[in-house]
C-alpha cells in the first residue's frame, strides 16, 4: 500500500503547472463546470475567474496540498476569488470619522450595495432557495439533502436522514445537480 503524503505536503508551482498541462479534456470539463458554478453564483466572468485562479496557482500564492486533486484545488481558488470579488462589490460602508468637526461621514462608493439593493439581494437569495427546494417537490430525500446542504450538514449525518445507502445517496446527489443545472442553465445569482 502506498503511504499517504503528510498532511502539510504541498505541490510546487512547477508541479501544479505540469499537472494542469497534462489535464485531459474531461479534467478540463470538470474544472470548467466548477468555474461556471462559482462564476454564476457570484456574477463574475467564467473565463476571467478561471484565468485568475490559474495565475494564482502558477505563482505559488496558494498552496496545493498533495492530498487534494489539482481540479479540486483550482475549484477552491475559484471559490475564494469569486467570493472576494462579490464581497468587494457588495462590501460594507467605509466609515470615516472627520476629526476637524467631529462629524461621522459614511462613505458609500458607487459600486457598493445600497440598503435597498441589499434588501433586494436578500429577497432574491431567499427566492432562489425556495425555487431550489420546489424543484424537488414530492422527493423527500432530495429535499432533505438540499436543506441539509443549505444548513451545512455533512456526509453520513445527512445520509442518515434520508435512509439511502451510499450508492443511492450518490445517485440522488447527481439527480439534484442535474435538475438544478437544467433549471438554472446560467446559474443563479443573488
Amino acid at each position: 500500500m502506498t503511504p499517504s503524503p503528510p498532511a502539510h505536503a504541498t505541490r510546487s508551482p512547477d508541479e501544479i503547472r505540469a499537472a494542469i498541462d497534462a489535464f485531459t479534456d474531461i479534467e478540463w470539463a470538470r474544472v470548467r463546470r466548477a468555474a461556471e458554478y462559482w462564476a454564476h453564483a457570484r456574477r463574475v466572468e467564467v473565463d476571467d475567474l478561471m484565468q485568475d485562479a490559474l495565475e494564482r496557482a502558477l505563482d505559488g500564492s496558494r498552496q496545493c496540498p498533495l492530498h487534494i486533486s489539482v481540479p479540486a484545488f483550482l475549484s477552491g481558488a475559484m471559490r475564494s476569488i469569486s467570493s472576494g470579488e462579490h464581497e468587494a462589490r457588495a462590501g460594507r460602508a467605509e466609515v470615516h470619522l472627520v476629526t476637524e468637526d467631529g462629524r461621522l461621514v459614511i462613505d458609500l462608493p458607487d459600486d457598493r450595495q445600497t440598503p435597498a439593493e441589499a434588501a433586494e439581494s436578500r429577497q432574491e437569495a431567499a427566492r432562489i432557495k425556495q425555487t431550489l427546494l420546489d424543484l424537488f417537490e414530492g422527493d423527500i430525500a432530495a429535499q432533505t439533502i438540499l436543506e441539509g446542504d443549505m444548513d451545512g450538514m455533512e456526509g453520513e449525518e445527512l445520509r442518515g436522514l434520508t435512509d439511502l445507502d451510499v450508492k443511492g445517496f450518490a445517485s440522488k446527489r447527481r439527480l439534484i445537480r442535474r435538475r438544478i443545472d437544467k433549471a438554472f442553465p446560467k446559474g443563479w445569482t443573488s
Partner: protein
Amino acid sequence: MDVVSDPQNKAQEALDRVAEKLVEDVLNATDAEILAEAKEDGRDIAREAASNRAIFARALAAQGRRRMATARAAIDARSAASAPLPRRLSPEQARQLLARALRDAPETSAKLTMAARKGQDLSDADVYGMLDDLVDLGLLPSSDDKGSK
C-alpha cells in the same frame, strides 16, 4: 458584544453551500458521467478543452510577464545602486556638483575648457560626461552621496 447575524449573508451562505456540493459532485463524477452529461447538454468537450487550454496559455503568459517585470526591476535596482554617483543625480544636482568640484580642484579645472569651468552652456549630457571624467580622475567619489546634498 452581541453579534447580529446578517440575513443576507445567511441566505448567500446557504446558496454557497449548495454550490459547493454541486461542484463537489462534478469533481467526483466519473469520466463516463461527464461525457454523458456533456452529450446530453450538447456541449463539445474537445472544443471547450481547447478554449480552456487557451486560458491556461494566457495565464502562463501573464505569469511570464510578471516574472520578467520582477527580474527587470531587480536588475534596475542593482544597476541604480551600482551606477556612478553622477548618474544618480538630477541634472540640477549634477550641475551643482560640477561647479563645486571645479571650485575645489582649480588645477584640474584649468585643464578643462573655459566653458566647462564656467559650467555654462553645457548640456545635461556634457555635465554628466564631465562628472564621469572627474570620477575617473579620482576627484569625485563614485559611490557616496556627497553630490546630492
